């Protein structure tokens, strides 16, 4: 997609980045101790911490990923909103106060509080690193996606910019600046998402998203003996036809020396124009038959029918929030589905008319209904996703470390509630932003992640610039938090506690900063490699790894007296290995390797349903086998309160 770059967008964006860096400089002068670097001195106000929680949590996955997924797949994207928010219930009711009570700087501290075990220190530090890196990938991918329309730069440049700024932020000031960056960003994201939703409702629905919206051509087809031999429009000369998956027929034509692809309609009477990208033998990509600079690759997504009170209309005018959903239910949305035509080196996105009622209930992405051809594995995948989302939140190290930035258990609890209210409100907005993006001609089929910001652009360059800058700050803040968590795992858990390097405060902070630098560089590399994947899907995988590796250990530590250090350590190892291996052999990863999805040995994308119970079983069995080691337990904290 080619975007026009606005000077205002650049100015607002640079102002945001400068403000974030200024804040870091300010707090850098105040951060001298390890407690200051890793836990902001433990004196952040609960209200600030609650919104900072929201800032941490409403990462690229929430704003970019969920909105994009809803825009392309309707309600199934909203399942992520529901699951992400439900996960906070586990955090509030089960994890928040004990975590605050047990830990010092990191999640490993809390897990190890009863045992002083080297095995826990090592495995929990590795788990923190792996979960954080899984979480870092989508943030960096989102950053790259953002700068393409905002600054007109290539994807990889965006990844490098974010990586560099974040390394600078973390290496200068640690958790204090990260907290305030998250607070400001979290608050702004919620405020401006509300404004964007008001724009969407005020705009209502229209069949014509704008004067520049591309009108897709439909032409007649000439068939002889069930074979396509030509078109009814002499302007389009038939060249070839290809059948994909035994059910979709795509036709290549020539219009004035430029290729134009069509899809044969279901009743085989017409050809419907598609969007397409062809990769030539020399690697050059043609967008709708022409170089990218010709700007012939359009933004899409529109309504083909709007029904209000049983009457078809061209537009609705302003709608209330519930009226918006019921009108969507009675209308028809034109989505764009992707198919690869490998024999022609071409990827097409064809018009897929979808009843509005299917946009506002589950089933378009996660096939769970028999009528959509769901297999038992499809259903298992759905349950596995919902399980990982529910159990993953309270096992995310960068979320858990935020409990150490407040002064008391009461403050930890209150900040969690502020977070739930703020995050819950935002997630309700995601449904409107996603559905709004699906029908206003703003979708970039190459990247679902930009649906939210591009919808903002539809309403004006001002709100687009602000929303994009906030989204960029979102990535900055979340990546900062993840890198603080990772550097804590390396410097505090591994070097100081596991290797027993006996570092003083100053050396501990220095080690943390060096670790932040290393993790930051690695994150940049991964962000470039994973370009093009939906960030919410990627975060879903991070949740699976976190829920498998960390949550069984946390819950059993808190609620089962027979839990041993070896049980925890083996459970963490099992959780990490099983979830990561299953992800690497999943259909989506096989597609990423360039292999057939159907060839993947593990038939579902979300591993939680296998890896979480497996980690629990290993924890219980190993703990029961190593009961004699429990005699050395340091304290049985939850009975001596």
């Amino acid at each position, binding site marked *: 997609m080619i975007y026009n770059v606005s000077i205002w967008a650049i100015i607002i964006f640079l102002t945001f980045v400068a403000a974030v860096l200024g804040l870091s400089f300010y707090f850098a002068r105040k951060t001298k101790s390890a407690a200051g670097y890793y836990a902001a*001195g*433990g*004196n952040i106000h609960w209200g600030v911490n609650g919104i900072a929680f929201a800032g941490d949590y409403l990462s690229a996955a929430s704003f970019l990923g969920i909105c994009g997924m809803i825009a392309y797949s309707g309600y199934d994207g*909203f*399942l992520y*909103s*529901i699951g992400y*928010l*439900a996960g906070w*219930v*586990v955090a*509030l*009711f*089960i994890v928040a*106060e004990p975590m*605050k*009570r*047990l*830990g*010092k700087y990191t999640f490993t501290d809390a897990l*190890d*509080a009863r045992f002083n075990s080297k095995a826990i220190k090592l495995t929990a530090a590795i788990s923190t690193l792996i979960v954080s890196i899984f979480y870092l990938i989508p943030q960096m991918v989102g950053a790259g996606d953002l700068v393409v329309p905002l600054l007109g730069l290539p994807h990889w440049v965006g990844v490098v910019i974010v990586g560099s700024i974040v390394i600078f932020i973390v290496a200068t000031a640690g958790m204090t600046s990260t907290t305030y960056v998250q607070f400001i960003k979290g608050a702004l994201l919620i405020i401006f998402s509300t404004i964007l939703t008001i724009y969407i409702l005020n705009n209502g629905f229209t069949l014509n998203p704008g004067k520049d919206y591309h009108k897709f051509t439909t032409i007649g087809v000439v068939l002889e003996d069930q074979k396509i031999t030509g078109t009814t429009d002499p302007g389009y000369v038939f060249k070839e036809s290809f059948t994909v998956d035994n059910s979709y027929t795509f036709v290549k034509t020539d219009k004035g020396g430029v290729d134009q692809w069509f899809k044969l309609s279901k009743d085989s009477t017409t050809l419907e124009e598609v969007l397409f990208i062809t990769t030539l033998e020399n690697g050059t990509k043609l967008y709708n038959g022409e170089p990218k600079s010709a700007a012939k690759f359009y933004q899409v997504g529109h309504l083909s029918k709007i029904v209000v009170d049983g009457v078809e209309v061209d537009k609705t005018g302003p709608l209330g929030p*519930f009226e918006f*959903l*019921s009108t969507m*239910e009675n209308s028809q949305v034109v989505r764009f589905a992707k198919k690869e035509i490998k024999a022609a080196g071409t990827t097409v996105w064809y018009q897929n008319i979808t009843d509005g*009622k299917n946009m*506002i*209930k*589950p*089933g378009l992405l996660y096939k*769970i209904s028999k*009528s959509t051809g769901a297999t038992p594995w499809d*259903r298992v995948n*759905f*349950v596995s996703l*919902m*399980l990982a989302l*529910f159990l993953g939140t309270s096992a995310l190290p960068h979320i858990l470390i935020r409990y*150490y*930035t*407040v*002064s*008391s*258990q*009461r403050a930890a*609890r*209150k900040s*969690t*509630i502020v977070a*739930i209210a703020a995050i*819950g409100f935002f*997630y*309700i907005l995601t449904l409107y932003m996603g559905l709004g993006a699906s029908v206003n001609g703003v979708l970039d089929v190459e990247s679902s992640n930009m649906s939210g910001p591009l919808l903002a652009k539809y309403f004006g360059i001002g709100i687009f610039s602000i929303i994009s800058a906030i989204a960029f700050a979102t990535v900055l803040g979340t990546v900062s938090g993840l890198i603080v968590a990772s550097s804590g795992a390396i410097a505090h858990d591994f070097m100081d506690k596991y290797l027993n390097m006996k570092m003083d405060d100053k050396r501990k902070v220095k080690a943390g900063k060096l670790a932040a630098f290393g993790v930051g560089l690695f994150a940049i590399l991964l962000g470039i490699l994973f370009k093009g994947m939906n960030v919410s899907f990627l975060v879903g995988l991070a949740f699976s790894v976190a829920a498998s590796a960390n949550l069984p250990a946390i819950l059993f530590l*808190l*609620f089962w007296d027979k839990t041993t250090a070896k049980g925890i350590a083996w459970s963490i190892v099992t959780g990490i290995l099983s979830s990561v291996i299953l992800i690497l052999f999943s259909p989506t990863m096989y597609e990423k390797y360039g292999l057939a999805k159907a060839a993947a040995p593990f038939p579902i994308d979300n591993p939680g349903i296998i890896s979480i119970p497996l980690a629990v079983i290993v924890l219980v069995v190993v703990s029961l086998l190593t009961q004699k080691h429990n005699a050395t337990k*340091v*304290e049985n904290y*939850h009975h001596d*309160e």
Partner: protein
Amino acid sequence: MHGPAAKLGKDNAASKKTRLGVILFLFYTLVYGGFVLIGLVNPELMGLHVIGAQNLAIVYGFGLIVLAIIMGFIYNAVCTRMENRLNK
């Protein structure tokens, strides 16, 4: 051993708060599980209108989010009262 970054006093309400937390967690898990179960067993139900012109997917989905917020406020109010009473 490790200790919190900020010094914490003894909390006499901790075990009562833990019990309340577990009860509320189990309640929410049941409601959340119901949502997943409908999706799994009879997904067509999600399209049924239940309140006005809104289908079950919207009502249940929004309901889960709003319920989490309401339960959070209730939990905090009860915990704060317990702390004030038991930690004098």
